[in-house]
């Protein structure tokens, strides 16, 4: 049963990533694109965790943690650049 549920959740996260790509391409303004990228890194963490579960290994946990930290830092850096025209003043 768990394999079927994992396949369904894989499909759900994949559809979410496609919707985010659509918003990233269409998005009428720059903050929309930042929001789409911010959602995409969270969804990719979900995909990595699911892949690690289906492989039965905790090897991919560190990759997920690194993506979480770098994604947050990059989102804040891009927003700061939009606000002030500079990241570190």
């Amino acid at each position: 049963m768990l394999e079927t549920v994992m396949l369904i959740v894989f499909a759900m996260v994949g559809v979410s990533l496609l919707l985010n790509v659509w918003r990233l391409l269409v998005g009428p303004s720059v903050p929309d694109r930042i929001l789409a990228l911010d959602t995409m890194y969270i969804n990719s963490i979900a995909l990595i965790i699911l892949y690690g579960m289906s492989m039965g290994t905790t090897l991919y946990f560190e990759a997920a943690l690194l993506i979480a930290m770098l994604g947050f830092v990059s989102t804040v850096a891009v927003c700061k650049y939009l606000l002030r025209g500079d990241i570190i003043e």
Partner: protein
Amino acid sequence: MFEWIISILLLIGGCFILVGSIGLVKMPDFYMRLHGPTKATTLGMASLLTAAMVFFSTTQAGLSIKEILISLFLLLTAPISGYMMIKSAIHHKLDCIERTKGIDNIEDDV
């Protein structure tokens, strides 16, 4: 028993993540679009990471609690990144539909 718990938590997490992304696509203006990813997707990730925690605790030796790290980190940082994004949206004076209220009360003090 544990298989049922893991399956239900995984399905809840997948549904929340999907709802967040549908909200990102379907909402009419940016101030509404910000609601979906910052709330629904973060809750979905918390549920999915709880499922991973139960899965690795039951299939491998010992208690696996390091998934709490990612969960806690996401729950802490989602409001901060949402705040930064709404700040840059106000700074750019993005358009909004008429039903979005309170936009006149904001002073651009950036």
